[in-house]
């Protein structure tokens, strides 16, 4: 049996004017478990707290009920006070008789009656309280960033600059990501590689950053502060330390000229050798052998690169290597890709080489791209005179198998950028943009778009294109409607550029599953709170950066990357983490192992293990739920989902709530 002390606060006249405090004391004095009851002017004051401490010592109290203001106000105060007297802080309950009683009721008798009932409920609950202890878990002071695009680069740099060690895992042979493929960036039109390359170099040289390129996350275990991650370093077939990046191997690879291996970096607009770096400024400047296409790996013959390499860096025998590293925090910056356009047959993307995606256009306009920056049609290498841009190709599309329901956010701006860049170089080009809405929120964004219209005379027409028909003369017939003028339009174009919807990198699903980080229907990572915790995953210790969380442009990505870095630094700065003791607990004897609780847990805190249990003298191996207290935030969703009542929440247990209900309904 508990020995409970009840303390009723006057709060000056805030409570005492409406609630007969003395009467409350008298009426709760004989409640089960109560050994002491008293009132005082200000319970939260130094003197009031002193009173509590004295009573704890004098009466050997094991539980406290404070009838006062909202627990949101002073629960912490009274818990600290109890702790000072050697009582477990979680043996304190607050009955809210101010905000939820004295302040809203006028009739003193009624308010007093209610205050007594609220006090009774709190007393009934404390009777079932158990001492709880905040757990502690150490923090490994090292962060992992998955993805080496601009989001990952910026996050890593910010964390590293704060003095913590960071590893970047990038599945491609070089960091740089999508941004390295771009020509210019909006709204300032500075060249993408001019602003990105220095950052890539900085990452490579930073003493606190370790790069794992051509590597993938293989397995993740552990929890916030203590993740164990297996990283697969795929065999490059190059001895990393010997290679000087001279590029001799790449120029001499026989497949460079005859191989027909499409360059991933140039979106297939150009071929590459079997030993290659994705692009000239690649970091690290170490090539990789594409074993699927390399003649040596296919037939055992060739070996040209090995023979020619001046530093003898080629190693055909190299194997994949798996390293296991401990991390305190993980940032997901896996970026995006564009959707597959096979389902959009109406735009003839697969039929005509002159229908291209915007990202292909980026390559075509890039001075380091397949055409050396000269805009030309892929069919006849002529410069296009009439160019049509089609917006929202697959974006804002409700048909699930075709496109995506969301707005890809960046297309309006990059299309304006493309149009202006083209008009800048070749002013006699006619450019038409077919749009559904032009969306340009962002600093200097609308002005940017208006410039395309007003200065560059880009023709914007409201209306989605219905069909693109390749013509026998090599041109493209674009069939559309001008909705504002109510006309159908049939126009000829030399080139059609599709603003294909972006989607999260397809690999993110696998990574999210490994991290137990939740993702939405569109495979974007979910944030812990859409407004207040936008760079954190609901799973503690997992942070979000860049397009993996949702469509966004470069400035936004960089800000989010910085924000994620700050959150990581905040976590790594701690030596240990205090864990909320009000967590779910599973009664293994009652658990059915049905996984219902794990299905509703937003934090991935519930796992299932085969455990030996002793039930009525029978030893059995059972699949039962296990709650990771470091991850559980104490929401209790699992407890209501559990049919057998095996899951319970400490501090708000089934019996505690039931007994409160009973006390109120008594």
């Amino acid at each position, binding site marked *: 049996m508990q020995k409970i002390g009840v303390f009723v606060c006057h709060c000056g006249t805030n409570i005492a004017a409406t609630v007969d405090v003395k009467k409350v004391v008298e009426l709760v004095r004989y409640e089960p478990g109560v050994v002491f009851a008293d009132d005082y002017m200000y319970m939260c004051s130094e003197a009031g707290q002193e009173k509590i401490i004295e009573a704890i010592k004098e009466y050997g109290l094991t539980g406290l009920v404070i009838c006062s203001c909202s627990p949101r106000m002073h629960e912490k105060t009274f818990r600290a006070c109890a702790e000072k007297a050697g009582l477990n802080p979680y043996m304190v309950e607050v009955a809210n008789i101010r905000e939820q009683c004295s*302040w*809203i009721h006028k009739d003193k008798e009624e308010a007093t009656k209610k205050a007594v009932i609220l006090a009774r*409920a709190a007393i009934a609950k404390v009777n079932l309280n158990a001492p709880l202890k905040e757990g502690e878990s150490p923090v490994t002071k090292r962060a992992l960033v998955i993805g080496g695009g601009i989001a990952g680069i910026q996050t890593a740099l910010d964390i590293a600059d704060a003095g913590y060690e960071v590893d970047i895992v990038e599945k491609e042979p070089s960091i740089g990501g999508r941004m390295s493929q771009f020509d210019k960036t909006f709204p300032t039109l500075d060249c993408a590689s001019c602003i990105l390359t220095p950052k890539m170099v900085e990452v490579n040289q930073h003493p606190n950053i370790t790069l794992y390129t051509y590597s993938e996350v293989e397995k993740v275990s552990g929890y916030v502060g203590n993740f164990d991650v297996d990283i697969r370093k795929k065999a490059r077939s190059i001895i990393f330390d010997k290679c000087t990046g001279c590029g001799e191997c790449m120029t001499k690879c026989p497949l460079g000229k005859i191989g027909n291996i499409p360059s991933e970096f140039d979106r297939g607009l150009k071929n590459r050798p079997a030993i290659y770096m994705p692009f000239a400024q690649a970091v690290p400047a170490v090539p990789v052998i594409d074993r699927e296409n390399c003649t040596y790996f296919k037939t055992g013959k060739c070996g040209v690169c090995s023979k020619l390499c001046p530093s003898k860096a080629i190693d055909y025998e190299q194997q994949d290597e798996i390293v296991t590293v401990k991390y305190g925090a993980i940032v997901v910056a896996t970026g995006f890709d564009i959707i597959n356009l096979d389902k959009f047959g109406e735009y003839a993307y697969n039929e005509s080489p002159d229908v291209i995606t915007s990202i292909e256009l980026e390559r075509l306009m890039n001075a380091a791209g397949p055409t050396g920056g000269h805009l030309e049609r892929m069919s006849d290498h002529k410069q296009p005179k009439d160019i049509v841009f089609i917006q929202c190709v697959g974006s804002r599309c409700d048909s699930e198998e075709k496109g995506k329901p969301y707005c890809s956010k960046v297309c309006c701006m990059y299309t304006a950028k493309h149009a202006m860049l083209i008009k800048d170089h070749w002013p006699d080009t006619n450019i038409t943009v077919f749009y559904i809405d032009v969306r340009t929120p962002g600093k200097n964004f609308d002005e940017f778009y208006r410039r395309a219209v007003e200065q560059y005379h880009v023709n914007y027409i409201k209306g989605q294109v219905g069909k693109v028909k390749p013509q026998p003369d090599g041109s493209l017939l674009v069939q559309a409607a001008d909705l504002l003028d109510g006309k159908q339009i049939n126009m000829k174009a030399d080139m059609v550029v599709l603003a294909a919807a972006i989607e999260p990198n397809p690999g993110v699903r696998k990574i999210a599953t490994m991290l137990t980080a939740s993702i939405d229907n569109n495979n974007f990572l979910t944030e812990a709170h859409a407004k207040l915790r936008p760079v954190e995953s609901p799973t503690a210790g997992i942070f979000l950066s860049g397009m993996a969380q949702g469509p966004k442009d470069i400035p936004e990505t960089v800000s989010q990357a910085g924000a994620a870095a700050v959150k990581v630094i905040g976590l790594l700065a701690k030596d240990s983490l205090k864990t909320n003791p009000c967590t779910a607990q599973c009664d293994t004897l009652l658990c059915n192992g049905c996984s219902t609780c794990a299905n509703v847990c937003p934090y991935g805190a519930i796992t299932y293990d085969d455990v030996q249990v002793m039930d009525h003298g029978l030893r059995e191996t059972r699949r039962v739920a296990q709650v990771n207290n470091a991850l559980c935030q104490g929401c209790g*969703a699992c*407890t*209501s989902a559990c049919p057998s009542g095996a899951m319970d929440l400490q501090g*708000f247990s089934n019996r505690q709530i039931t007994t409160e209900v009973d006390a*109120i309904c008594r």
Partner: protein
Amino acid sequence: MPMNEENKEFRPLIVAFCCNWCSYAGADLAGSSRLSYPADVKIIRVPCSGRVNPMFILRAFERGADGVIICGCHPGDCHYSTGNYYARRRMALLFSMLEYMGIENGRTRVEWCSAAEGAKFSKTMNEFCEKVKSLGQNVRLGDLRCKN
């Protein structure tokens, strides 16, 4: 107990489950703004509306509550991201079942109430009390075994 001997006015007994982060804070705001609602409402603090097990609700009715209201964060605002979504489904099914068994609709309610909506909290409680009062004492869900 619900019958006041002197004036015979029926006063309902109402149990409100409020989530700690939004609705309980909303109730506090109603208090600090002095927006009154009947003393018939007694609030039980839970971490999240998703914590409210249907058994708590039936228990309250068994014990003689005349109305039960569950308040949580607005959909999309749950402190724990998803708790209120599950609560919404559970309660929709439970309430529909109670209606199916012939229990008056007005005795149960779910209301989303943010920490800033003190006025809404007070208004909701006033409305709910009125409604439950008009339905009278809960006879159908009470359980004699639970009476002292």
